C-alpha cells in the first residue's frame, strides 16, 4: 500500500511537472493547477473549505444564530483588528441587522471564488452571509522591528533600514517622500508564493518608458518563488550571464529615496529587505550615502579613495605575479633584494603562490561570513596569524605577496556594495591567471576585455557605463568626485528624466 501510494504521488508529481513544462508561454501561468479554482465559480463556503482542505491553520468560525460564517488565517490577521472590525460587530447584533452591517463599504462584496481565496491568503477575513461573501482586510503580519542595516553602515546619517515586510518598507519611503507624485505599482511574482512586488516612481521625474519596461519584465517572470530582491533582479536584468550586478540593491531607506528623486525606479519585494533600483550604472556601486553627508571635499576624497581601491583590488596581486614571473626590470633597486630574498625560500612559482594565498583569504572571508560573530572573530585571529606570520616563516609564501593579497582584500571591502565587491574579487582571479601566463601583457588584455565587456552591458536598456560611455562630463561631478551641492544641478543623465533640474541653489 505504502509503495503504491508513493508511486501514485510520484506519478502525480511528474504529471504536474510535465504539464507545467509543456504549457506554452504566458497563458500557462494564468492556468492554475487546481481545476475548481476558476474565476467563474460563484463563491461559496463549501467551495472555499474544499480549497483549503488539509490547511489546518485555517480558522472557521460559525455564528449559527445570525447565519454567518467567518473564515480567515489566524496568524495573518491582527487580533485587535479582527475583534474591532469583525468579531465584536457580529456578536452584538441580531440576524436582521447583519445585512445592513455588511453593506457598509468597508466590507467588500466578492463575487468570484478566485479573488476570495486570494483575499484569505492575503490576510483578509471572509464573512459568509446567506449567498453573499464579504472580505474585510485585517492583515497584520509579524514583523521584525526596524533596525540598522548590517551590510551598509554609515557613520553619520539615518540608520533605519528596510525590513522583510513590504508595507513597513513602503511606509518608510512614504514618510520620507510626502508627495502625491510618488506612485506605486503593485505586481505579483512567483507562481506558488505569489510574492508582491511594489514598483515606486515619482511622476514627472521618472521616465515612464523605464516604468513600462520594468513592469513588463516583472510580468514575464515565470518562477515558483522569488525569495530576495537580489534574486529578483537576476530574473529581470539585461545580461544574466555577466558577473556584474546590473541593478543596484540597498537596504537603506535614504539611499532608496535618493534613487527615487534621481528619477530611478525603486522596487520592493515583499519578504526581502533588499530594495532594488533601476536603471543603474557601474559607478553607482562606488557611491555611498556618506559621500553626501560629509563636506564635499571629504566626500570627493572618499570617492577617489574608492576608485584607487578598485584599482588595487583588481591589479595588485596580478602585478606581483607578473613582475616576479616576467618583468624583473620593473622592480626598484631598493626593493629588489627584499623581494628576491623572500621569494627564494618559496617552493612554488609566483602564480601558484598567489592563487594559494588568494584562495586562503577567500576561505577565511567565507568562513567568517557563515559563522556567528563570536566564532567569526576567532577565525579572523587564527587566520591572521596563520597567513600573516606562519606562512612566511615556513617559507610557504613571500611576505611581499602577503602585503599584496591583504591590501587587495582590504581594498575590495572598501567598495560599498557587497555584491559588486564580490564580483570584482572574482574578476581579480582572472587577472591573476592572465598575469601568470602573459605577464603585464596579460593584465592589459584582461583589463581590456573587462572594459569591452562592461561597455557592452546595459541596465534596463541604458548603458551600464554611463556617464563615461556615452560620455557626459557634467555627470562626472557626481560620479568620480562629489562636487559641492550647488554644482549638482541636474539629475543623472541615465535616468532620462523629463524634469532634469533638481537644484536651484545659488553659488
Amino acid at each position, binding site marked *: 500500500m505504502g509503495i503504491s501510494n508513493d508511486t501514485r504521488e510520484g506519478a502525480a508529481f511528474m504529471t504536474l511537472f510535465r504539464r507545467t513544462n509543456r504549457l506554452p508561454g504566458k497563458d500557462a501561468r494564468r492556468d492554475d493547477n487546481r481545476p475548481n479554482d476558476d474565476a467563474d465559480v460563484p463563491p461559496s463556503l463549501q467551495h472555499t473549505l474544499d480549497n483549503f482542505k488539509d490547511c489546518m491553520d485555517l480558522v472557521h468560525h460559525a455564528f449559527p444564530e445570525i447565519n454567518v460564517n467567518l473564515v480567515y488565517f489566524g496568524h495573518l490577521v491582527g487580533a485587535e483588528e479582527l475583534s474591532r472590525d469583525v468579531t465584536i460587530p457580529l456578536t452584538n447584533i441580531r440576524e436582521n441587522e447583519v445585512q445592513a452591517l455588511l453593506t457598509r463599504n468597508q466590507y467588500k462584496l466578492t463575487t468570484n471564488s478566485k479573488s476570495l481565496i486570494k483575499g484569505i491568503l492575503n490576510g483578509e477575513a471572509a464573512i459568509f452571509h446567506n449567498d453573499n461573501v464579504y472580505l474585510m482586510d485585517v492583515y497584520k503580519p509579524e514583523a521584525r522591528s526596524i533596525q540598522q542595516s548590517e551590510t551598509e553602515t554609515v557613520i553619520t546619517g539615518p540608520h533605519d533600514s528596510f525590513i522583510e515586510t513590504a508595507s513597513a518598507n513602503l511606509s518608510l519611503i512614504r514618510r520620507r517622500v510626502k508627495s502625491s507624485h510618488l506612485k506605486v505599482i503593485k505586481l505579483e511574482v512567483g507562481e506558488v508564493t505569489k510574492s508582491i512586488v511594489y514598483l515606486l516612481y515619482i511622476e514627472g521625474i521618472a521616465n515612464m518608458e523605464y516604468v513600462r519596461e520594468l513592469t513588463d519584465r516583472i510580468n514575464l517572470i515565470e518562477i515558483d518563488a522569488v525569495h530576495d530582491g537580489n534574486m529578483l533582479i537576476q530574473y529581470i536584468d539585461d545580461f544574466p550571464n555577466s558577473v556584474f550586478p546590473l541593478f543596484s540593491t540597498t537596504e537603506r531607506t535614504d539611499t532608496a529615496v535618493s534613487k527615487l528623486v534621481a528619477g530611478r525606479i525603486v522596487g520592493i519585494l515583499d519578504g526581502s529587505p533588499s530594495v532594488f533600483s533601476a536603471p543603474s550604472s557601474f559607478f553607482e556601486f562606488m557611491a555611498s550615502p556618506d559621500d553626501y553627508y560629509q563636506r564635499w571635499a571629504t566626500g570627493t576624497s572618499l570617492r577617489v579613495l574608492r576608485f584607487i581601491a578598485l584599482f588595487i583590488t583588481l591589479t595588485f596581486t596580478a602585478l606581483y605575479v607578473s613582475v616576479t614571473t616576467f618583468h*624583473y626590470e620593473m622592480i626598484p*633597486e631598493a626593493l629588489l633584494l627584499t623581494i628576491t630574498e623572500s621569494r627564494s625560500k618559496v617552493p612554488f612559482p609566483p602564480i601558484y603562490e598567489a592563487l594559494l594565498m588568494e584562495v586562503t583569504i577567500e576561505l577565511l572571508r567565507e568562513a567568517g561570513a557563515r559563522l556567528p560573530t563570536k566564532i567569526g572573530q576567532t577565525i579572523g585571529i587564527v587566520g591572521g596569524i596563520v597567513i600573516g606570520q606562519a606562512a612566511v616563516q615556513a617559507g610557504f609564501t613571500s611576505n611581499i605577496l602577503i602585503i599584496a593579497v591583504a591590501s587587495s582584500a582590504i581594498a575590495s571591502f572598501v567598495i560599498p556594495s557587497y555584491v559588486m565587491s564580490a564580483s570584482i574579487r572574482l574578476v581579480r582571479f582572472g587577472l591573476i591567471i592572465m598575469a601568470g601566463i602573459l605577464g603585464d601583457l596579460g593584465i592589459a588584455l584582461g583589463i581590456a576585455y573587462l572594459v569591452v565587456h562592461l561597455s557592452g552591458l546595459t541596465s534596463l536598456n541604458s548603458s551600464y557605463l554611463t556617464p563615461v560611455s556615452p560620455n557626459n562630463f557634467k555627470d562626472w561631478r557626481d560620479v568620480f568626485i562629489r562636487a559641492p551641492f550647488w554644482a549638482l544641478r541636474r539629475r543623472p543623465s541615465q535616468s532620462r528624466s523629463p524634469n532634469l533640474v533638481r537644484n536651484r541653489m545659488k553659488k
Partner: protein
Amino acid sequence: MYKVLRLFLTVLLFGIVTGCGDQRILEKLGLIQTTSYDIAPGSDEDESKQKLLISVTIPRPDSGTGTGSGGVNREFLTAIAQTSKGGRVNLSRQTELQLVSGQLRNTLFGLSLAKQGIWEHIDTLVRDPSISPKVKITVVNGNAHDLLAKNYPFHPRTGQYIDRMLEKESHSQVVPSTTLYQFTKDYFDDGIDPIAPMIKEAGDNVKIDGVALFQKDRYIMKIEPKQALIFAMMRTDIKQGDLNVDLSGQNRNNEHVTLSSLVSHRSVHVTPHNGNFRVDINIKVSGSVLEYIGVLDLENDKDRSTIEKLVSEYVQANANEMIAVMQKNRVDSLGLGKNIRSTLHYAQWHKMNWPDTYQRIEVKFHVNVRIKDYGMFTK
C-alpha cells in the same frame, strides 16, 4: 553547451600551461648590477687580437658563504672572451642562475680599453632592449676588474656603492651623469664629444677621479676633480654645487673662499671672424659664501665686490686653461661645434673639417660671480 565546454577547457588550459613560455622567475635570475670591461692581461699588442676581460657583479641575498661588504653578499663572475656577448655565455657557465641585464645600473671601462675606444661595447648594450638607456657609463682610472672585484668593508656592496656615489656626486655637479642614452647621443651628434665620470681605487674606498673626455669613443684626457665644477659650469647651467677657491693664483696670499649653493647660467655667442670663429661664453654665477679666510671684510660692500672679482678671475683663468688643453687635444666636450653649426647652413658645416677648425677657433670666457649672502652672523 559546447560553448560552456569550450570555456571550461580554456580555463583548464590556463591552469595547465601556466608556467610555460618565456618566464623569468625572479629568484632564478642572476640580476647583473654592474659589469666591467677591460683588456685581458697578457693580450696581444695587436688590437684586433686582443681579448676582453668581462666581470659582472650580482647581488645575492641568499648566498651564505661570501664575506661581502656591508653585510650583503654578492656573486662576482669573470670571463675572458672575444666579444662582450660571447663573454656572457662564458659567465653563464659559472652560475646556477640565469644571467639577465634588465637590472644593470652601471658599466665600468678600464682606462686602457677606453683609450682604444668603447663604442662596440656600448653598441651591444644599446641594442639589448632589456637594458635601460639610463645605465651609467664610467671610466676607471686603472683596472676596472680589480676595482669591482674588491670588497670595500665600510661600504655597501661594491656595485651599489659606486652607483650611489656617482648618483650623489652628479647631483652636486662634480661628475656628469653620463648614461647610455647621453653617451650615444653625443657620440652620434655633430659637434660634441662624449664625456664620462672617472673613478679610481683608493685603498678602502673608491674615489671620484674627475671627468674623462672622449674624442668620439676614445678616451683622450681628463679633468681634475678640483676643476670639475668649473668644467660643469663651462658645459651647462648648474643649479647646485660647491666651489673651493684658493686665491694664491690671483696674487693673494693664504686666502681661501668656499662658495656654496652655486647657480650658474651660461650663454654662448658665436661670431664669424675672418674665416674663423670667435666664441664668447658668458657665465653668470651666484652663490653664498660658506667660508672665507683672509684679510678682507665680508660685511664691507667694497671688499665683497673684490672677492667677487677675484673669484671671477679664478674661474675664468681655469676655464681658459682647460679649453686650451681641450683644443690642443681636439676634444670638443663643451659642444661648441653644435653652437657653431647652428649659425651655418648644413652644406657649410659639412664642408668644414670641424676637428681642425676647432683647434683654431678663438674661445673667450667671461665670468661674473655674484655673492648672494655671506651668513647670518654680524660683528
